[in-house]
């Protein structure tokens, strides 16, 4: 037991939203200089807990002690003044401002109280960026021109520009390549060496093993285990705590016989300048084809071009041998393509609407005569489609924003299922989906394939591609460098192929 009081001690925190009890008496202790990992399925209460900690939500009951004293975190500013900084998963930077302006937003160095000292801001920003291992980021550049990884560094620089004692990081590695993850871990190590505490949220158990000191597991708004040793607690135990089940990454079995028949999707010489080069691929009914590659290898761009959301500079896409109109989403959807995009909230979901309306949006003409919607038929069909995918809760009238990440993904899949689509394009299908729900999503995708759907899968997680796909295409810098059956590949081989000859950037 630590002789000093913990840096942060939250106890009995509850928080309810209409219809949902997000936190149900959570305790969390964080010591100075430790990396405290927060684990839990989506909907377990992690986001709510860190928002309480950031001052963005007020708890209904419970106490927060900071360095031994009771505090009330009335607002994000109050939390920041105490030295609590939060780096959210969805970055909150202003794209039209420069790096330095973003870093000092709200606490600009000033002369005479109001004249912004731009040079001082740039100099201190450059120092922070250097400390974070990214001296190449120019403080005068606009944030909108930076890559996702660089933006994350800027976010971190902003946190460090305050006198921080505790940094909360919400899935900081989700958008990063392995190199950048290494850099992130180095930064975390430096911070803790200085006595700063880090609350680290991630779905990736191997990361928690590498950098974590202790783990608190949340489930259904409660801390089911607090302060477990991060390195020595068996994976089975952690997963069991999170899910209440003794399962790990479970991939469904592949069918015994390889899918045959003519390819339903055929891509011939498809290319987009500066994104990816002439690409050929085919997908047969019942087959899952995976595209593996690093961030920036052109994976998402390829899917979006096949789908018509981007216009190719060369090549064509054929469905059942008939070419689709290049650059036309409507032509693709009519022919039977469906896309589950990477950014579900930004690209797929109508967050103000019910599950029913999200599911039916691509099939409205089927439930309407002369433009008049038969709402009974609509909700019946949406219900059938969501039930087929075991979407929870089993009530399509609820707003889609109240669903967990995995269930929101199911709502997107239900949309295409209802449309009777023949080729499903999956872009990072388990991004932001917890371990337990992943296995279920994998099973759903495999079942749909077994029923004759052709699936083209893109994922930055190599085990996911290898476990789910039948055939794998490995991409590097917009080119296919290898194609093989998933059985013939393993993670190391794929990573070798992906990294081989890649310039040290």
């Amino acid at each position, binding site marked *: 037991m630590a002789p000093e009081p913990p840096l942060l001690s939250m106890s009995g925190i509850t928080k309810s939203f*209409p219809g949902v009890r997000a936190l149900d008496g959570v305790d969390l202790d964080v010591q100075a200089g430790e990396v405290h990992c927060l684990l839990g399925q989506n909907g377990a209460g992690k986001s709510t807990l860190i928002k309480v900690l950031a001052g963005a939500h007020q708890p209904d009951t419970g106490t927060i002690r900071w360095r031994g004293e009771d505090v009330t975190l009335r607002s994000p500013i109050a939390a920041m003044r105490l030295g609590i900084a939060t780096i959210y998963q969805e970055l909150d930077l202003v794209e039209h401002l420069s790096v330095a302006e973003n870093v000092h937003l709200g606490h600009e160095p000033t002369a005479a109280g109001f004249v912004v000292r731009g040079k001082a801001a740039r100099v201190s920003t450059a120092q922070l960026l250097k400390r974070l291992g990214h001296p190449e980021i120019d403080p005068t550049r606009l944030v909108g021109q930076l890559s996702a990884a660089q933006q994350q560094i800027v976010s971190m620089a902003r946190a460090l520009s305050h006198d921080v004692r505790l940094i909360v990081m919400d899935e900081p590695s989700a958008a990063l390549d392995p190199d950048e993850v290494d850099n992130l871990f180095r930064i975390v190590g430096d911070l803790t060496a200085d006595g700063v505490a880090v609350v680290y949220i991630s779905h990736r158990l191997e990361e928690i093993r590498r950098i974590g000191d202790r783990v608190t597991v949340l489930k259904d708004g409660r801390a089911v285990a607090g302060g477990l040793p991060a390195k020595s607690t068996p994976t089975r135990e952690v997963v069991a705590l999170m899910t209440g089940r003794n399962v790990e990454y479970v991939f469904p079995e592949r069918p015994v016989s390889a899918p045959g028949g003519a390819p339903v999707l055929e891509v011939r010489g498809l290319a987009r300048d500066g994104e990816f080069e002439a690409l050929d691929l085919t997908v047969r*009914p019942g087959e899952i084809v995976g595209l593996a590659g690093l961030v920036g290898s052109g994976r998402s761009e390829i899917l979006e071009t096949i*789908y018509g*959301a981007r216009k190719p500079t060369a090549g064509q896409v054929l469905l059942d041998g008939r070419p689709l109109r290049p650059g036309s*989403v*409507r032509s*693709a*959807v*009519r022919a039977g393509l469906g*896309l589950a*995009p990477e950014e579900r909230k*930004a*690209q*797929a*979901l*109508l*967050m*103000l*609407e019910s599950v*029913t*309306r999200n599911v039916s*949006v*691509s*099939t*409205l*003409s*089927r*439930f*309407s005569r002369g*433009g*008049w*919607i*038969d*709402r*009974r*038929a609509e*909700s*019946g*069909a949406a*219900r*059938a*489609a969501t039930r*087929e995918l075991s979407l929870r809760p089993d*009530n*399509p*009238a609820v707003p889609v924003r109240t669903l967990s990440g995995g269930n929101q993904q199911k709502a997107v899949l239900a*949309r295409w*299922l*209802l449309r*009777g689509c*023949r080729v499903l394009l999956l872009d990072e299908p388990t991004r932001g989906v917890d371990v337990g729900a992943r296995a279920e999503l994998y099973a759903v995708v495999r079942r*749909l394939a077994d*029923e*004759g*759907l052709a699936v083209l899968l893109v994922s930055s997680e190599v085990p996911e591609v290898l476990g789910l796909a039948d055939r794998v295409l490995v991409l590097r810098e917009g080119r296919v460098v290898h194609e093989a059956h998933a059985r013939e590949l393993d993670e190391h081989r794929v990573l070798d192929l992906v990294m081989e000859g890649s310039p040290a950037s």
Partner: protein
Amino acid sequence: MTQHVSPPRGSADKVPLTEQLPAWRTLLGRADVRTLSLLGVLAALVLIGGVTKPDEFLDTRNLQLVLTQASVIGVVTVGMTFVITSGGIDLSVGAIVALSSVWATTVATQEYGFAGILFTAVIVGVGCGLVNGLLVAYGGMVPFIATLAMLASARGLALQITDGKTQIVTVDGILNLGERDSYVLGIPPLVLVFAVVTVIGWLVLNRTTFGRRTVAVGGNAEAARLAGIDVRRQRLYLYLLSGLCCGIAAFLLIILSGSGQNTNGNLYELDAIAAAIIGGTLLSGGRGTITGSVLGVLIFTTITNIFALNNLQSDVQQIAKGAIIVAAVLVQRRTASTT
């Protein structure tokens, strides 16, 4: 064929609770708290009117006048509600009403009689909406800028046509519609048109694919596009619809005033946007309510009437209107944050 789910038409599955509201609740819309509070404000205004000027305010003729005045701006507001729900804005409505009303009342047009005036008013409105829609949907212009340009040009053209003079209508068919003889069960024809436009607008927004697509485009245009909705065509249709409503409103105004003027429809854009916003339509798009918009219009018109009856100047009216907009939005934000 790989159809995974056959849509069970008229399936016996129980429709979820919230989709099976009683008819009166559905009519009021889902945001009942907001609708009821708007009704409450309207009731309070009627009470104030009744107390301060019991004889004049509650007089049948006065109530008919209030509703008639509400009809013109009300029809414009219905169109505006659609545009705002889709995440757009139409600043040109007042100017389009002006241009339609003067084009439809030129000596040349009046020679074609009733039908000529009606046809011209509607076609000019739709034509302006078409230009707005093409600029926004296919020209990639920001709605604010495109419709601001239309505001300037349509007003200018209206002035050019009239040379600043009032164009008196001499067609009896039009003038008669403004007379008491043509009231149906005590309801002026203008109010009937407003009622019909409101009902059709409500049905289109809440019960048709067009309405659903409007909401989808406003809620998340990128998601709508990737779901296979033709976002650009939908936007074009929405500005056409707003133009159509302006044309109808111009026709109502011609009946009401027996003339066409280039100063018609002054600041209608502000009144229509304000009515839609206090009614509960989100300025950022994705949620719209015709019921709320109509209540918003009635509230504004009633205030104007009460102020006029109490001999308060129009400057006081303007200040009161501004205060109401602020108050309504503040109340809405409070109710929104608790849900």
